């Protein structure tokens, strides 16, 4: 009798289990379909088209020709990749130390720090495209406020035509990008700093450690893991920059400020009067993805010491 009951119980449990798992799958199904359709299928699409020549209507199989073209005949592609690297490392060399410095200041908990924290984060909520628009107005050659300020301060004699040379144009883009992003990194650092035990600093104070030693010997190692992740996100995010370039220079002058994402994008969509070359764009997309993955993994290898610093 007892045995029978037990059996009944477990079989109904199995029924329950089956019903629940069916429901779980049903609940997840729309997302799974959407996910495979819009995340994995596009990757498959690109992998296929990389071996074709296609303008969106007609396609012919051309084997590895697209890849041969990327590696041997497309200097502008590599220049655009180089620009993305220059821009990324140039801007992060300012952005990351600035964010960390401000986080350390704000972590002192003096009066008014809450106000400054809210203010510094504010540019982060503004669209990168709009940020680009604002900066191209501010750095305008004839009517820009930046030229006016520099002139009235006596720093320059004539207005600088910021967007006419590669160097100055990339400087403006980098400036805008730092403005648009430093707040987020600052918040990450601030959170990490707040979790550093106060006792460590107290001990250090007793030992007579100076502020610079304190920063490099205690603060930096303690926030190492956060630092590693924040820097990775910042590097990958900056290499993938597209909106800001499209809304400021759009690759001008003469394609010299094109970054890799906008360069490939324009081949896909024939933006800016370029011919649509889906096959070739797909091949470039694959090469770019592999390069980004390589950069990330090299970074992770090199920065492991930072991540495991305590």
């Amino acid at each position, binding site marked *: 009798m007892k045995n029978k009951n037990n059996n009944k119980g477990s079989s109904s449990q199995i029924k329950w289990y089956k*019903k629940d798992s069916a429901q779980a799958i049903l609940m997840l199904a729309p997302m799974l379909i959407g996910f495979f359709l819009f995340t994995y299928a596009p990757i498959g699409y690109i992998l296929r088209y990389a071996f074709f020549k296609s303008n969106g209507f007609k396609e012919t199989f051309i084997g590895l020709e697209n890849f041969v073209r990327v590696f041997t005949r497309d200097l502008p592609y590599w220049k655009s990749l180089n620009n993305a690297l220059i821009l990324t490392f140039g801007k992060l060399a300012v952005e990351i130390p600035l964010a960390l410095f401000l986080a350390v200041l704000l972590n002192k908990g003096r009066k008014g720090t809450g106000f400054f924290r809210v203010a510094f984060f504010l540019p982060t*909520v503004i669209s990168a495209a*709009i940020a680009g628009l*604002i900066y191209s107005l501010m750095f305008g050659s004839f*009517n820009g406020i930046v030229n006016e300020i520099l002139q009235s301060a006596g720093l320059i004699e004539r207005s600088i035509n910021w967007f006419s040379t590669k160097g100055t144009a990339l400087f403006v883009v980098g400036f805008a990008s730092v403005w648009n992003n430093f707040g987020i990194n600052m918040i990450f650092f601030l*959170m990490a700093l707040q979790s550093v035990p106060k006792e460590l600093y107290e001990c250090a104070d007793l030992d007579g450690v100076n502020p610079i030693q304190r920063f490099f010997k205690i603060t930096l190692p303690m926030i190492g893991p956060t630092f590693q992740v924040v820097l990775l996100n910042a590097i990958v995010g900056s290499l993938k920059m*597209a909106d800001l370039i499209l809304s400021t220079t*759009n690759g001008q002058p003469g394609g010299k400020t094109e970054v890799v*994402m906008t360069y490939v994008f324009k081949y896909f969509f024939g933006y800016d009067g370029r011919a649509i070359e889906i096959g070739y764009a797909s091949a470039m*997309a694959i090469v770019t993805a592999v390069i980004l993955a390589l950069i990330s993994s090299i970074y992770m290898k090199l920065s492991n010491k930072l991540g495991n610093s305590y």
Partner: protein
Amino acid sequence: MRYLRTKKFSSRVLFYLVLTAVFIVTIFPVFYTLMGSFKSNMELLTDGGRIIPSKFIFDNYKEAWKLANFKQYTYNSLFLAFFIVVGTIITSTVAGYVFERGNFRYKNIIFGMVISSMFVSLGSLTLYPQLMIAKAFGINTSLWGVIIIRVLGMNVTNLFITRSYIRTISVEIDESAKVDGCSFFRIYRSIIFPLLKPLIATLAILTFRFAWNDYLMPMVFTLSSPERMPLVVGIMNLKGSGAAASSWNLMLAGSSIAVIPMIIVYLIFNRYFIQGLTAGAVKG
């Protein structure tokens, strides 16, 4: 003693001086844009050195709203953001719940595939195939295409946030509901979802920021139909058009229309912004 006190005082002065300098550089572009939106186009083109407009012109807004289609753009932005926010809240919480509490075959494999998409993601490089797939379903010329891709595309960060949040809810609640005859879905709807309120606020804010500011995807979905463009796309469209130089006043009025709601939302809910970002990026 006095030496120490003056040293402390001067370090405090330095502290506020540095922060104020950064504050000015941070806020100035926003302030300049807002002020610029009241300037005449003539003043914008010839007298950019002036910060406060010589005469406040409110017609820029009127003109942008009525003639330059910004009324429609604003409506589109609200439409896009609303459905993406609501949809994302549902899909993220459902996905987080199913992956945390559900039991079915291949769960871990599926979860692994979702997570690994984070590493193969190509960003804007998959926009074209996404558009083509949307075309196959006939949703490539409306904002619904963007909404469906964003909502069903499973944002890995959101998934991590909800999953770890649901983990903190005691499993005993589920089990006692099960004993009372609640089905798996019913537990989600009546028990888990209501308990997620604080998280939902965070999700809503982050998703709103993302949807409202998104540029490239809505742009490629509305290339041929300007009447469907959201604000950011509409403004950029104006910049790319031949009349760019003569419409700075409209672009700035438009930018203000795009930026002000976002800033207000941020100032009211800034706590949630910061919570959500840190939960997603560092702990996730």
